[in-house]
């Protein structure tokens, strides 16, 4: 049977990023024979997980991967977040999704913008869009933020 979803909740820690990512990578392996797609999904998952761990307040983080009957795969990561981060997230996603020259151009804009700042990356979401070819969106409920990456998929039959 081809699985259609998996969900993990965990206390956000660096050690768990790699483990959660690999668990979900195995899930992707069950889901699709398309190796390039699996690699894209693995990169997107890792970036979302790292953002989650870095910017969440103490508490519970959740990652859910689900394939809809319409053959869309959605990776959702949610966590409690600091107010400053919610604002920054809104700005970056709005700027990214509104950038006229496309995802790769915006990715390079961010690279140049942050080149001198060694402490912050800020590239993760742009990378998901530019390199993984996934649509990125978010929603906020109270202090809990959900970030989603989405792509069409043909699951194994």
């Amino acid at each position: 049977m081809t699985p259609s979803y998996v969900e993990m909740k965990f206390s956000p820690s660096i050690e768990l990023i790699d483990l959660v990512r690999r668990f979900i990578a195995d899930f992707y392996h069950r889901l699709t024979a398309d190796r390039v797609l699996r690699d894209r999904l693995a990169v997107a998952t890792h970036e979302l997980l790292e953002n989650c761990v870095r910017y969440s307040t103490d508490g519970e983080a959740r990652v859910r991967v689900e394939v809809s009957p319409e053959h869309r795969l959605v990776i959702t990561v949610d966590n409690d977040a600091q107010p400053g981060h919610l604002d920054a997230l809104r700005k970056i996603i709005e700027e990214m999704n509104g950038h006229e020259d496309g995802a790769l151009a915006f990715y390079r804009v961010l690279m140049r913008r942050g080149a001198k700042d060694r402490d912050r990356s800020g590239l993760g979401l742009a990378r998901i869009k530019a390199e993984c070819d996934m649509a990125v969106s978010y929603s906020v409920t109270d202090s809990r933020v959900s970030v989603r990456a989405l792509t069409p998929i043909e699951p194994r039959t």
Partner: protein
Amino acid sequence: MDIDLQVPASNELRATCRLDGANLLVTLEGHADLRTKAMLDGVLGRVHDVAVERKAPEVRLDLRAVEFMNSSCIKSLVSWIGDAQDAAPAGAYAITLMGSSAVHWQTRSLEALSGLADIVRIDVQ
């Protein structure tokens, strides 16, 4: 001749550097992510210093054995490229990023980096 990178060893990411004629060849192997970003920054900082000191015309960074690199470490490469640009003209050197077409992140990430600066060239096989 091997160059001492003067960074603590890591199980997750390994780095070597040697002289290849007048050029530097840096080889990375493993995973570049949150756990190893500090090490990568140390390696790139040391490589930059050696390249400027020795007036190396080119630094080749072999990433083919890096299974995964997160965006923070891609950012480290960006910062290093910026340092190399700033070193011109006295300490100018070109950068070649070597990747494998069999590793997805390398084909896409190196493509993104190649458009950053004239001193950067990519070599994906």
